[in-house]
């Protein structure tokens, strides 16, 4: 029995010790080096804070950037919850301590506030001392020190602005060239747009009599076809035409109707056109559709 009781007691103690272990928050500080700093140097501290169950960082109470003392600035402080119990805090200091000879300076403890069970508590970073060295050789008399000169004004980046200007101008010129090419404004290179021209010519004839309009309209489209194909297109050549200009293939039926109408108008003697104006309308629509296809080519 006595043995049993003593084992139970030991277990209790062990559990208590374990709880005590987890209950105590502790902190670990890492810095790259602790020597060779001069005035103006930045010092980075990486803190890892272990917090017990239920404890959490009180972020509003974390030290805020600003002067720590008359020669030390806290520049930045960032924190990150690494896991349920571990918080990582990165602190950057800047030293403004001027020294005549190498000396050791001490960064005072930093208070990190946390809350556990409704009450606030604090844990302090350890004091951290580091070696500070002067830039001016220690033995130099004050009146022999040559001060560093003023900062100079900077030249304006005229050259790079000029290059950008030329670059953008060339890009714009290229764009304009491509547009001109698309709209056939470059002689010899750009494609002409015979159907668009034909449409304009047909539109110009609106006030003329239907007979004249039909005649001129048919001729205009014949001409546009010839220009597009490079030679006059006759009804028997439609297949070859569509093979050479597949863009127009969707309008095959309309092309055939056009050639029928043209044949009737020009060659069939006495073919009375009852409604030439309707034909003109159809012709204009056909020409517009051709012009649209022509543009998409």
């Amino acid at each position: 029995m006595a043995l049993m009781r003593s084992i139970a007691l030991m277990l209790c103690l062990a559990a208590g010790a374990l709880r005590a272990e987890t209950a105590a928050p502790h902190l670990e500080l890492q810095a790259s080096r602790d020597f060779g700093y001069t005035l103006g140097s930045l010092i980075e501290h990486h803190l890892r804070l272990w917090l017990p169950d239920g404890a959490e960082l009180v972020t509003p109470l974390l030290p805020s950037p600003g002067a720590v003392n008359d020669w030390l600035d806290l520049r930045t402080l960032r924190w990150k919850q690494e896991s349920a119990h571990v918080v990582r805090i990165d602190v950057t200091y800047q030293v403004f301590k001027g020294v005549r000879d190498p000396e050791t300076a001490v960064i005072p403890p930093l208070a990190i506030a946390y809350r556990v069970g409704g009450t606030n508590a604090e844990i302090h970073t350890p004091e951290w001392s580091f070696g500070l060295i002067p830039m001016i050789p220690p033995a130099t008399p004050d009146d022999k020190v040559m001060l560093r000169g003023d900062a100079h004004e900077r030249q304006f980046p005229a050259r790079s602005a000029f290059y950008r200007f030329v670059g953008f101008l060339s890009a714009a010129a290229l764009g304009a060239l491509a547009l001109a090419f698309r709209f056939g404004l470059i002689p010899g290179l750009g494609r002409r747009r015979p159907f668009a021209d034909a449409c304009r010519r047909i539109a110009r004839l609106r006030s003329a009599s239907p007979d004249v309009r039909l005649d001129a309209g048919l001729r205009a489209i014949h001409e546009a076809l010839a220009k597009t194909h490079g030679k006059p297109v006759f009804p028997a050549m439609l297949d070859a035409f569509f093979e050479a200009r597949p863009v127009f293939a969707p309008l095959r039926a309309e092309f055939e109707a056009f050639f029928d109408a043209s044949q009737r108008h020009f060659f069939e003697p006495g073919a009375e056109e009852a409604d030439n104006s309707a034909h003109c309308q159809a012709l204009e629509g056909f020409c517009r559709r051709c012009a649209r296809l022509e543009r998409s080519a």
Partner: protein
Amino acid sequence: MSSSGHDSLLADWRPRALALESSIKQCLIGMDGPIRHITLAIFARGHVMLEGDVGVGKTTLLRAVARGIGGAYERIEGTIDLMPNDLVYHTYINEDGKPQVDPGPILKHGPELSVFFFNEVNRARPQVHSLLLRVMAERSVTAFNREHFFPHLQVFADRNRVEKEETFEIPSAARDRFLMELHIEAPEDQAERLELMFNPRFHDVDKLLESIEPGVLPYREIAGLAPIIQESVRASDALQQYALALWEATRKPAAYDVAIGNLDMDQLILAGASARGVSMMMRAARVAAWLDGRDYLVPEDIRGVFRETTAHRVFLHPVYELRRSELIGELMTGILNNVPAP
């Protein structure tokens, strides 16, 4: 005859013409174009010059045509020693030992002669050419002290295009009398070539031609029909302009932007198509319109016969005459491609 009478006549004849065409097509493979043109020539009452390699079916074609038209068919081979007399009569010692004079190939059948085929015409002497010229132009010949008329005569001549030696080029006046000059070539299509090679039907020409119904066309009536066709098919203003432009283009191709390589087009042409030539072209075109079932002309009618009726009438500058066969084709294609209608 009234115009409605004409109409019904034309309507009657059209199926017959098409029947002739299709029955000839059955016998000859890959010759649809020449057959159509010969059909046009028959109804335009024009003579035809055939040009092509040896053994491509020129003779078969003509025999088929002759059989279809009906009437008498004669042929003669052009040789260097052929004299005009040989066409008109031939003399020999008969079985009784007496000299005898018989009518030659032209006269043998009298006015019934409908197809006369002059093979290798360029081997014959110019004297023979001039006789032929008269026969073609006037459909008559003087022999045995009288005029013989051949109202139904249609002359087909054949020119060997391979050999140029010991040949006499046909004078331009004679060439101008031919309505058409057709190029006969072996079919390009592989299937048709295979058919020609391996189908036994094409090996026996005599038997092959028997499949053509003789005398599909009553040849005696064609002479009367031809002018009716010419009268009934009309040409609109736009079409007349187009035909005129084509003619103009054979004289001044440069004006229509026709170009062959970098030749100077003004130097190329010595004489464009003759007036007779273009009227013959229009005759053939009208027949084409009629065969197509129309009573008006469209540009396709002219385009279909332009090359055949015009190419041999354009005379090139002597410098270029040697390259004629190559240049003239390009010229015709250029003209057809560059003259717009309307």
